[in-house]
């Protein structure tokens, strides 16, 4: 973590940077070769903490030969994978709850050249108690900030180096009912439970489901979790924090008795020199009680969504330089 003054010096050195922090600090950063977003929770070497007086600065690895910044909106975000240079990678930062965040979450797998080259990133957030009143902001270091645009740094790499993306998710599908949904959506009203049509709200109440547990889809061994957000019994609607996908098989997750311990146990041993990017979900921070807890090398902002090719929730996403 760095003070504002240290961060300004790093920007002035010309090194390509990814910066995260509270808005009042981010707004004071000078133009330069950086991208950033608002974040208020961090995993640091000293442990997890809420932080509004220091900034997290991630230097891009020396193997990056060139990094060019582009901004995308809802009408252009579909080009994001295609724009990644061959042999390179890109870092994306999206403002939480923006149209571009929504489109990326729902449709990225249909964008041209999906996942062909590594796209990593995160969703900028706000303080937890100000989710209704404050907007997340992302920054193009050339001098503009956005509440509705996604900022992306496209990077070319030195020859013979590549980036490998990985996801850590402590949740696995449980052995309960199979849930499927009729459409890709952030709002779930009806669903099928073991093939029978049901209102999701009714099912949650009848089965007394622990709503802290996410729905889990199994992508060939990688768990993709969907957190339940607002359960509106009156409207019969459940707002989810990552979209449910049509025809995907979901089950509620197996309970995790000791969240922080499970997270630590799931972290791999890695070479610190290879780690070039790491973000951790803000849900892990809160549900896992990570304030004051250390996760070794896995430091960085705690985010409202993580990107490893596509959007994830309740994960740690990290990238290694190979």
């Amino acid at each position, binding site marked *: 973590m760095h003070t504002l003054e240290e961060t300004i010096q790093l920007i002035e050195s010309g090194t390509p940077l990814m910066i995260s922090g509270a808005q009042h600090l981010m707004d004071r950063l000078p133009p330069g070769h950086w991208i950033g977003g608002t974040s208020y929770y961090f995993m640091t070497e000293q442990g997890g903490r809420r932080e509004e007086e220091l900034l997290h600065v991630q230097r891009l690895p020396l193997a990056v030969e060139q990094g060019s910044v582009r901004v995308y909106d809802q009408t252009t975000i579909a080009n994001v994978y295609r724009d990644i240079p*061959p042999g390179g990678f890109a870092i994306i930062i999206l403002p939480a709850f923006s149209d571009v965040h929504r489109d990326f979450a729902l449709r990225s*797998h249909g964008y041209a050249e*999906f*996942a*062909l*080259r*590594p796209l990593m990133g995160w969703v900028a957030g706000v303080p937890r108690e100000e989710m209704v009143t404050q907007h997340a902001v992302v920054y193009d270091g050339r001098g503009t900030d956005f509440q509705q645009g996604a900022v992306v740094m496209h990077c070319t790499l030195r020859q*013979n180096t*590549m980036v*490998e*993306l*990985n*996801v850590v998710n402590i949740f696995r599908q449980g052995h309960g009912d199979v849930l499927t949904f009729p459409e890709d959506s952030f709002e779930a009203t009806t669903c099928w439970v073991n093939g029978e049509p049901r209102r999701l709200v009714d099912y949650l109440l009848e089965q007394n489901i622990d709503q802290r547990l996410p729905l889990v889809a199994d*992508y*060939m*061994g*990688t768990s993709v979790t969907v957190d339940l957000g607002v359960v509106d019994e009156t409207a019969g609607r459940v707002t989810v924090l990552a979209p449910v*996908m*049509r*025809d*995907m098989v979901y089950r509620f997750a197996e309970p995790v008795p000791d969240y922080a311990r499970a997270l630590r146990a799931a972290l791999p041993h890695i070479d610190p020199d290879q780690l070039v990017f790491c973000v951790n979900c803000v849900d892990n921070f809160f549900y896992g009680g990570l304030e004051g807890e250390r996760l070794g090398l896995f430091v960085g902002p705690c985010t409202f969504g993580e990107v*490893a*090719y*596509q959007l994830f929730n309740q994960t740690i996403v990290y990238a290694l330089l*190979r």
Partner: protein
Amino acid sequence: MAEQYPVPSPTNPIWMDLLQGKKNVPLDFLAARMAVTLDRRKVAQGGQEVLRECARDLWRLFNDNARLGVVQRDLQKLHEFLDHGR
């Protein structure tokens, strides 16, 4: 890691078999897990043209990332399937 295992040709049936779930190779490459899972939905509702397009994309995913160690491990598994039907 050196490229020990070549990428099967784009017309090799292994790509379509993976997408149709005829072969369930336990892949480790995250991008391939995402692509195969999501493309299986498309293939289930589309025709042969969709299947061919997705197979071509999957081949390209492996081809463009073949130097990664995790992709080499997956290619080794694909070759074992091709050689021995395992």
